[in-house]
């Protein structure tokens, strides 16, 4: 079982409890210097500071302030939801680093779920989901290493996943991209919650509240994981913590 605290990125991590929504721009430092393992500088360059938004302004959360909570409707899935169900292979021709194709990818999120899921994740003729939070069983995201999977969920408008456990590469890709916040539940929430329930996740308190049923559930603490997603993914985090040396 993969836990949220199973990734640590260095001795000097500080936990900040404010997850940054994906619309927050990535700031690239003025200059960067990298060294390879044998000490040779691999890349040195200077560039003007530029702001690169992760999603276009079509995102309805564009004006949301960073918070320590997630709130919204939840979508419930079972065990072993693999990457082919999250984003079927025929859509992998879309290149996630291309903003238009990023949006298109989002529109196909979870379209691979079998017909037993009578409620769609994204309504017909829509490109964004109304479910901010996914609640899943075990081994969520198993299968391929395709980063398109967490990216599609994030592009669709999902903010967080609360799963009983994750597959390794999917979890890693979620953290690296900062697209969705992967949380671990203590209990099998996929049996406690139903699609359409209104839930709130409080990161600092490690708690999920289901307003529709009135029940509360304990989540596993984020631990060292938080700062990476807060920073906006592994690159931003690596710069922030000085893992990638910046010049001056």
């Amino acid at each position, binding site marked *: 079982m993969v836990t949220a605290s199973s990734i640590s990125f260095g001795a000097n991590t500080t936990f900040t409890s404010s997850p940054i929504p994906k619309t927050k721009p990535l700031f690239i430092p003025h200059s960067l210097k*990298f060294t*390879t393992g044998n000490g040779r500088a691999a*890349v040195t360059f200077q560039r003007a500071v530029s702001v690169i938004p992760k999603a276009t302004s079509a995102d309805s959360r564009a004006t949301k302030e960073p918070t320590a909570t997630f709130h919204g409707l939840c979508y419930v899935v079972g065990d072993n939801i693999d990457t*082919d169900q999250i984003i079927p292979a025929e859509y992998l021709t879309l290149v996630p*680093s291309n903003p238009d194709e990023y949006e298109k990818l989002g529109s196909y999120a979870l379209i691979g779920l079998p017909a037993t899921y009578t409620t769609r994740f994204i309504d017909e003729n829509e490109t964004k989901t109304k479910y901010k939070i996914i609640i899943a069983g075990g081994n969520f995201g198993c299968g391929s*290493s395709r980063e398109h999977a967490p990216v599609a969920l994030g592009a669709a408008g999902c903010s967080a996943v609360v799963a009983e456990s994750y597959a390794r590469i999917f979890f*890693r890709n979620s953290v690296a*991209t900062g697209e969705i916040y992967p949380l671990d539940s203590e209990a099998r929430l996929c049996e406690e919650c139903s699609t359409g329930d209104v839930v709130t996740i409080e990161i600092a308190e490690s708690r999920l509240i289901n307003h529709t049923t009135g029940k509360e559930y304990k989540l596993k603490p984020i631990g060292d994981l938080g700062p990476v997603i807060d920073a906006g993914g592994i690159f931003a985090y690596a710069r922030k913590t000085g893992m990638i040396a910046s010049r001056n």
Partner: protein
Amino acid sequence: MELKSCSNDIVIFFLNSQTDIGPDCCHAIDIITCNYWPAMLTSLGFTVEEGNILRDYYNASSAPSLGGLTVIYQPQKDLGSFCFSSTSQFSVNKCKKSAVSKKIVSVMAPQQSERRPATTGSVKNAMTLTEKIFSRASEKPQLSPGDNVWVNVDILMTHDVCGPGSFGIFKKEFGENAKVWDREKIVIIPDHYIFTSDERANRNVDILRDFCMEQNIKYFYDIKDLGNFKANPDYKGVCHIALAQEGHCRPGEVLLGTDSHTCTAGAFGQFATGIGNTDAGFVLGTGKVLLKVPPTLRFVLDGEMPDYLLAKDLILQIIGEISVAGATYKSMEFVGTTVERLSMEERMTLCNMVVEAGGKNGVVPADGTTFKYLEDKTSLPYEPVYSDEKASFLSEYRFDISKLEPLVAKPHSPDNRALARECKDVKIDRVYIGSCTGGKTEDFLAAAKVFLASGKKVKVPTFLVPATQKVWMDVYTLPVPGSGGKTCSQIFEEAGCDTPASPSCGACLGGPKDTYARMNEPMASCLSLQVCVSTTNRNFPGRMGHKEGQIYLASPYTAAASALTGYVTDPREFLE
């Protein structure tokens, strides 16, 4: 000090397997080992293991009746210190001024200049094969499962599906004019969506080409003429098979790829795992990745492999045993007499599906079979590593292979294991033989063997997709044993199979709608869903196309047998 004057003799002993360690030195050694052990020896820079050998030598030589033992002494170069195999014994005749019996095989010269004292007394941290690779690649002599370490990458592979995204991230993060960390350590292999009219898919191969030209990437297995794969001299096909065939897999190294089945390369005794675009973008710029050291599960496979079983059956057995999350975040190490007798391609099949059990990586320790395979493929030096005898494994599973039967994984999970013979009433609609899992040369030879044994024609459409150009050539040129010189292709034709297709990943993962052999229709008839027996690696809903398609994962033997009957069939129907 008496010992210091002996130290040269002792060094020469290790160097030449011959010595003039006289009785005085022997006596000195005795005093030391009994009274000052181990501090004295280690202060001179000898390791615990070397001290043991010296002590054994002394003991044997002072008891002449022991002269009959023979030694196989195989030091294995490991992080600069001696590491002895468990079969070390000693053969000595006399102590003074005598030649030690020269049964010593390949002695490694001890480092003369920089001798680091071994950790005194306590056992050096015993490590598994995977831990040792991490240790070397991160330049940390000691580490444990759970540690997060920055690791130097030896090879990074990407393909047409994930390459464009990875390059996009690389440029966004490192700059439009950034250069990759090492143009010779990146291998770009278009293979997923190649023979299609899908414009985006075709464009993605162009994006690969543009990047390779710009960065002067040494290894780019390009394809331009989609109508005739043979017209493309550089094109290979399925990335994991191409990596092996082109000599990019080497024992002891770290190989990452933007594909979950990158773990296939673990068959070569290296650490190989799949990563996403963002990690790949990071590696492109820095040559490093942050990885957590996985604990290791050990799978001991012993017994004679029955001639109706293949490596695919073995891994289906294991996945069925531990489930699709049984190896999450763990390394899977395959050892035992059965494994030792597997060919490289069979070992690749075994390691290929570790990701289906959630595994981070799979390894088979390198041995003579590995070295022979690599002989004509790579001239780069490599250094295999092996699990220490006292290494800690999270769990150990033992299998008596002689007792296993052919298996399938039923829809819709690779761990939905069942005996092939118990599924004999499952009517099927098609058979697919291909992919990195089951589309290699030996896989086709295996299928041909079953068709040959039957002599009949297949009852359902049987799709054959060789993994690479080389495999395709083999299918058309290699004689099938016992056939009187026929090639696989001839046997396939006589059996009524489809003509072997252009090498690529094909329908293993569905792909664009016009992909050859894709399962596009849900229904076989008005009453039944389409059922496919496939030598591929995953059978989750929609894997090969339509989400209602029913996929039974199987070995090439089982797939061929099923094609002949039109039902899921145990290959013993034809092979015994």
